[in-house]
């Protein structure tokens, strides 16, 4: 009962927006899709709440009416046709109400599914999201190859435009879930599918892999950065550029370290000889807020720690430890931090 009450209390608080809206919450929709899902959630919640209250009331009423027989043989009760008849009606109508309610919920679920699915624009922003163990490859396909933007883990989208996400996976099944935006979508290896959403309010919304995909499933986060159309286009133009030429001598040395060590076996930095597609594209890595799939902030210390010993931070990750000398490490961090 206490648990149920605290659940109710927490829902009421959430309803009253007393809690911090947060950036990772089903009940704070930032998109019409999540709004439809939230509406269905509250509809079902209040039905269940009413059922719960009625059940407890019936239970308490039956308890209050019951006669306690202290000892001796149980009293013999005469067969009462009238009471049997009433009980039959009560059970029958309760079943009818239950079936009708479940049918209404079923219909509304289907209707909500349709409302979440339906694409309302023929000119959306298309984004290809590919799941990897354990990060998200994000690209904005364009018929001209040099106009294709590739990044990782942070999905920039314009506010108020329909966004189509094309999904695929490189290894195992992942699931794309940003609760403020829309429902979960599985990313299946070798099977491309699509869904769409549209975000109303600018902000950063957190997402998470929602299908267990291996050791670091819990550290496979992403964020959706919703910004105005102008900001989005400026970001896209910046991302289209090749990597910035390093300006300081330390950063120049860092590029040399990057290109002569294991880094270039997995990562791309456009404009240099590093072109492997196995790990995230680092061409503009300094423009991201987080690294290692939303695991660490994008700071010099976190970058250095991640480069030297990623297996301590995310055991099992595909990134290998890199025992660089301190000078080389500082240089490569300086280079990466200059890649705006």
């Amino acid at each position, binding site marked *: 009962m206490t648990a149920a009450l605290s659940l109710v209390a927490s829902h009421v608080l959430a309803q009253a927006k007393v809690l911090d809206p947060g950036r990772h919450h089903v009940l704070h929709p930032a998109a019409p899709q999540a709004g439809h899902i939230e509406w269905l959630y509250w509809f079902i919640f209040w039905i269940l709440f009413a059922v719960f209250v009625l059940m407890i009331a019936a239970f308490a009423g039956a308890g209050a009416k019951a006669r306690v027989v202290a000892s001796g043989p149980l009293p013999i009760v005469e067969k009462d046709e009238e009471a049997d008849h009433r009980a039959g009606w009560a059970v029958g109508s309760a079943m009818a109400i239950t079936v009708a309610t479940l049918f209404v919920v079923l219909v509304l679920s289907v209707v909500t599914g349709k409302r979440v699915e339906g694409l309302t624009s023929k000119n959306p922003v298309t984004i290809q999201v590919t799941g990897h163990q354990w990060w998200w490859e994000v690209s904005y396909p364009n018929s001209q190859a040099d106009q294709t933007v590739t990044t990782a883990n942070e999905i920039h989208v314009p506010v108020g435009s329909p966004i189509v996400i094309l999904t695929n996976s490189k290894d195992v099944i992942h699931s794309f879930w940003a609760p403020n935006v829309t429902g979960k979508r599985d990313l299946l290896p070798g099977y491309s599918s699509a869904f769409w959403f549209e975000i109303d309010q600018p902000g950063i919304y957190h997402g998470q892999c929602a299908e267990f995909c291996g050791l670091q499933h819990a550290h496979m986060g992403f964020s959706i950065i919703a910004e105005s159309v102008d900001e989005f286009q400026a970001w896209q133009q910046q991302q289209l550029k090749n990597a910035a030429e390093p300006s300081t001598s330390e950063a120049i040395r860092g590029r040399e370290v990057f290109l002569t*060590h294991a880094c270039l*076996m997995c990562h791309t930095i456009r404009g240099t000889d590093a072109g492997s597609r196995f790990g995230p594209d680092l061409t503009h890595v300094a423009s991201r807020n987080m690294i290692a799939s939303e695991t660490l902030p994008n700071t010099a210390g976190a970058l250095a720690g991640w480069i030297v010993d990623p297996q301590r931070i995310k055991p099992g990750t595909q990134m*290998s430890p890199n025992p660089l000398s301190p000078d080389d490490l500082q240089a490569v961090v300086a280079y990466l931090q200059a890649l705006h």
Partner: protein
Amino acid sequence: MQVRLQLMVVLSAITVLGSCSREDRILRQPPSASNTLNTVQISGLNPGANLIPTPPSSNMYQESAYSVSEGQKLFEAYNCVGCHAHGGGGIGPPLMDSNWIYGSEPGNIFATIMQGRPNGMPSFRNRIPEYQAWEIAAYVRSMAGLLPKGVSPNRTDEMNIKPAESSTPKQTPTGITGVPEQPK
């Protein structure tokens, strides 16, 4: 009857428990031996003992199914498949047959990966960590059936007409054969 049943239970428990270690994941790699291979070796002649590199702990990568499957993944990620295909060869020699030009021991394969070989095999020294080269060497051996069935990968993610590594018959190595002499 009772005794035989107990014996069977004990034996099957040993079998089951014994197979656990093959799945041990080596997440914290031992530090790599510094400068294992710092010179390009072209001649097969060596002064003194015929030393070849040895894995950090004897055969730890050959006995771990996890390491071999990591090797399989890296074999593709580092584009070994570009020349050797999935073992059948193409630009580079096939790896699933019995012919080993530069030796079939893990150390031979490691040296081939790290040093490179004439006519096209690039040197991966300083480009990939040593433990990954050992993992790839273990996977390469599995393609010719040189690893136990229980360790070799039994499925691939590719459309592939060849049988899985775990059901490849053992190819007796030719060419440079035998275990090279190791330091005492």
